[in-house]
């Protein structure tokens, strides 16, 4: 094939048209292949988007559908009503979605703030300083983030019963910290490892004290990492179900428990459309949060795992 192009100068003029034609054919073939590859990529991308969004789409369609048409398989919105959302917040059947939203929000904000306050200094030390026993501390924190929730649920259930704490906010906040704090330290640690610490040194050389260097130079740089970690800790706490299902009462019920225990007007008949409406209410704030801070969340989620 390529023998034509390396032919001697004497025959070059005679062979030029052949050479040009062949190159052209090759370019065209390459373009065709590229177009084919692009089409294949596009088809697969559409498949993934549909697979990820279809169940969520079905939840939204059902949430807006009249309960009489619960099992209507029409793929687009029909018999549209807002009644399910009103029913979802109706407290007459023992569903307290409004209160559960308040509880979840309160508990998750408190847990996130506590985890950040405790975790920032700890993860700074782990990322920045070298000291004996560091591997041990890191191993302990990693181990804690992998233990099963039931391992602390069992003793706390007994302990909180004795203290008469069951059904109070601290009975959820304390075990939630056990989940949020390792996540916070782990994520912040991997963010902090990537920070340009030379700048802190430069500030020190320019006459800042350690504390000043941290406050003026490092903190503004670390703010996005802290913010991302806060979102991840908040979402993780918001989605928690195991601890809440055992340690909460009607008064402190979180949204996940409210959704799981949702009761309808008739016993043994699942009020699917109303549950889907409640599900949309619980999920939409997270989806908005995730879409706005998409890049940061992906960075935070993957920061720990892959940089090693």
């Amino acid at each position: 094939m390529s023998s034509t192009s390396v032919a001697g100068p004497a025959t070059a003029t005679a062979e030029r048209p052949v050479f040009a034609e062949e190159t052209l054919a090759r370019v065209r073939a390459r373009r065709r292949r590229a177009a084919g590859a692009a089409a294949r990529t596009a088809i697969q991308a559409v498949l993934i988007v549909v697979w990820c969004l279809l169940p969520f789409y079905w939840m939204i369609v059902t949430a807006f559908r009249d309960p009489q048409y619960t099992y209507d398989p029409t793929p687009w919105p029909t018999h549209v009503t807002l009644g399910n959302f009103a029913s979802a917040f109706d407290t007459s059947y023992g569903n307290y979605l409004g209160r559960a939203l308040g509880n979840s929000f309160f508990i998750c904000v408190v847990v996130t703030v506590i985890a950040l306050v405790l975790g920032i200094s700890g993860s700074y030390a782990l990322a920045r300083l070298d000291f004996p026993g560091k591997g041990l501390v890191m191993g302990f924190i990693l181990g804690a983030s992998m233990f099963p929730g039931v391992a602390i649920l069992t003793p706390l259930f007994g302990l909180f019963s004795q203290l008469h704490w069951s059904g109070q906010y601290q009975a959820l906040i304390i075990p939630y910290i056990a989940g949020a704090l390792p996540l916070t330290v782990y994520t912040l640690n991997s963010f902090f490892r990537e920070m340009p610490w030379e700048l802190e040194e430069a500030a020190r050389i320019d006459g800042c004290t350690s504390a000043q260097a941290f406050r003026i130079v490092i903190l503004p740089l670390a703010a996005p990492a802290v913010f991302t970690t806060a979102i991840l800790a908040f979402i993780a706490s918001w989605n928690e179900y195991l601890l809440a299902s055992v340690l909460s009462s009607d008064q402190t019920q979180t949204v996940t428990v409210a959704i799981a225990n949702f009761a309808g007007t008739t016993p043994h008949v699942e009020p699917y459309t109303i549950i889907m409406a409640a599900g949309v209410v619980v999920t939409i704030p997270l989806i908005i949060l995730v879409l706005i801070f998409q890049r940061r969340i992906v960075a935070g989620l993957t920061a720990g795992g892959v940089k090693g």
Partner: protein
Amino acid sequence: MTSSVVQAPAPLPPSRAGRESAEANRRRITRVALYLLAPTIVAMAIVVAYPIVISIINSFQSDFSGIDPKTGLFQQGGFVGLENYTNWLLQQCQSGGKTVSCPAGTNESQFYDSVFATFLFTVVTVALETAFGMWMALIMNRSFRGRGILRAAVLVPWAIPTAVTAKLWYFIFATNGVLNTVLGLHTLWTADLWASRWAIIIADTWKTTPFMALLILAGLQLIPEDVYEAARMDGASTAQQFVRITLPLLKPALVVAILFRTLDALRMYDLPAILTQGGGGGGDATTTLSILVVRELRSHIDSASALSTITFIIIFAVAFIFIRLLGANITGSEKKARKVAKEL
């Protein structure tokens, strides 16, 4: 060129003062680190270590307090050694002061069923999530118009709370639900032995594959493009590039992702607890170890402590074997931090 002119300073003999100040510096750093870490360590000790220690102590105590039929005296639980553990592992129950094989329907009789269900879910979901996650990541790693939409869409299943996911799939899997209607089936997705297991596996795969895909994608993005260019120059096919370049270079990220997912799947609770209530088949087809612990917790807390300790040990054993066999580097590069610290 000018370096030849500049005379390198003669290395100073290590002075006593220098060594002492280095030592003092090291001690100062350790002290500062200790202060900074203290809040985290104290909090973790209170919310994690203390409960686990109590749990282990409880697991050696008896749940049964009351009037002893033989002596007629009140008996307060007390130390029973490994009895709670052997009750689970040998599926024994105490009945009238005697040890008998547990009748069907008791939590103890479901122990090995739930071990099986837990490992089944773990192996199948992690395998499916790794395969689909790899596929998604490879697509997301290509550049094309609308890639932003793809990356946003992938985050949706991840962001939905598992409790909501469970209810959503409960509705999809309903007997008159959309899945049976569209496929023309009459499957009892929450009651049949294997249908209920597959319902959990499908819902979990939907929910968690995006997380896997993002971890793998982050690993893919660390592979430099020129490696592929060089391979193409050498005439490597797409398949060869994947097997010879992508997989080996992706291995560290992949191992960590699979380890995280495995440990997470071993403690699965929310999805089967809500979607099938652990039921299906004879009544415990989708009962995971975590579900069994919560069930036992309501009546026998010391026995539940033993079971949660067993669960704990299983998870740590899997993690240990995993790290030993595949050499997962979960704590990341300590070298960089060490280097920075030296410069401090």
